[in-house]
């Protein structure tokens, strides 16, 4: 493997423009925060496996915005059915980017199924998302992510990465994260009006 998740995250962070991001708990969230915090980042602190579902719902609710789900291989493996739902609903504004380090990095590096040959991009294609590919270098990631941002999705990018050791963490205040995110979306988190 030729890129760390930290380096890959910094590259993607630089390409986001005004994209909305939902990021998986643990190291993927820490790396995104370290690469540069934004109000448009929804950092999860639990609900492992639900980033693809959350990003799908957000993409369907806000077709006017591009939505990036930053998932992990271990997390996505908990909720593979979500790929079939994405394939069925086909949100053109959704990119699911999977950091595949072949391990549960946040809990000590236990191997996941992708260390034993499980191919998540092939799974995405088989479940009905034709725009799904695996990348293994910073250059290929940049090309794939730029292409995904400039053409109709949904797209799945599986980026093979080496584990990195994030030194900082996002805010622990979940409600602050939600309210800041909603304000950035133009929604009033404190309003009772529906």
């Amino acid at each position, binding site marked *: 493997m030729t890129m760390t998740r930290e380096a890959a995250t910094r590259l993607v962070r630089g390409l986001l423009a005004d994209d909305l991001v939902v990021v998986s708990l643990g190291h993927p969230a820490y790396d995104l925060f370290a690469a540069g915090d934004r109000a448009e980042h929804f950092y999860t602190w639990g609900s492992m496996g639900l980033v693809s579902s*959350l990003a799908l719902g957000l993409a369907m609710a806000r077709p006017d915005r591009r939505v990036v789900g930053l998932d992990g291989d271990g997390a996505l493996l908990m909720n593979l059915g979500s790929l079939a739902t994405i394939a069925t609903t086909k949100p053109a504004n959704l990119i699911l980017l999977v950091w595949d380090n072949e391990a549960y990095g946040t809990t000590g590096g236990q191997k996941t199924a992708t260390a034993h040959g499980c191919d998540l991009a092939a799974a995405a294609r088989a479940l009905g998302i034709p725009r799904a590919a695996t990348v293994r270098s910073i250059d290929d990631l940049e090309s794939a992510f730029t292409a995904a941002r400039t053409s109709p999705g949904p797209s799945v990018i599986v980026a093979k990465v080496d584990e990195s050791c994030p030194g900082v963490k996002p805010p622990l205040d979940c409600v602050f994260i939600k309210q800041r995110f909603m304000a950035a979306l133009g929604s009033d988190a404190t309003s009772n009006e529906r």
Partner: protein
Amino acid sequence: MMQSSGLGNALNGLASLLVAYQIPVLLVISMRGDPGEWNAAQVPMGRAVRPVLDALGIQHLTVDGPETAAETVRLVSSLAFSVQLPAACLLPRRLTAPTTAGRP
């Protein structure tokens, strides 16, 4: 919308996303495992629904009958958005299941 069995599958997402981030969601849960149930596998989760919701601090109301269903759903929805938490509306099996025993 989900069945009581689906609530079991959804628990960590409810707890660590919806409750922790104070995200209001109207849950409509059709019950299994309550009186009239024929499938023993549905009973343990069905009986756990209310204690589990209580343990998570998720308020719930049970629909009495078709006449009050719409009002109950409105009340629970209003509750969810006013307290910024999920809230649940439970549909007893007797209101949703066919009367003939032995059918799902």
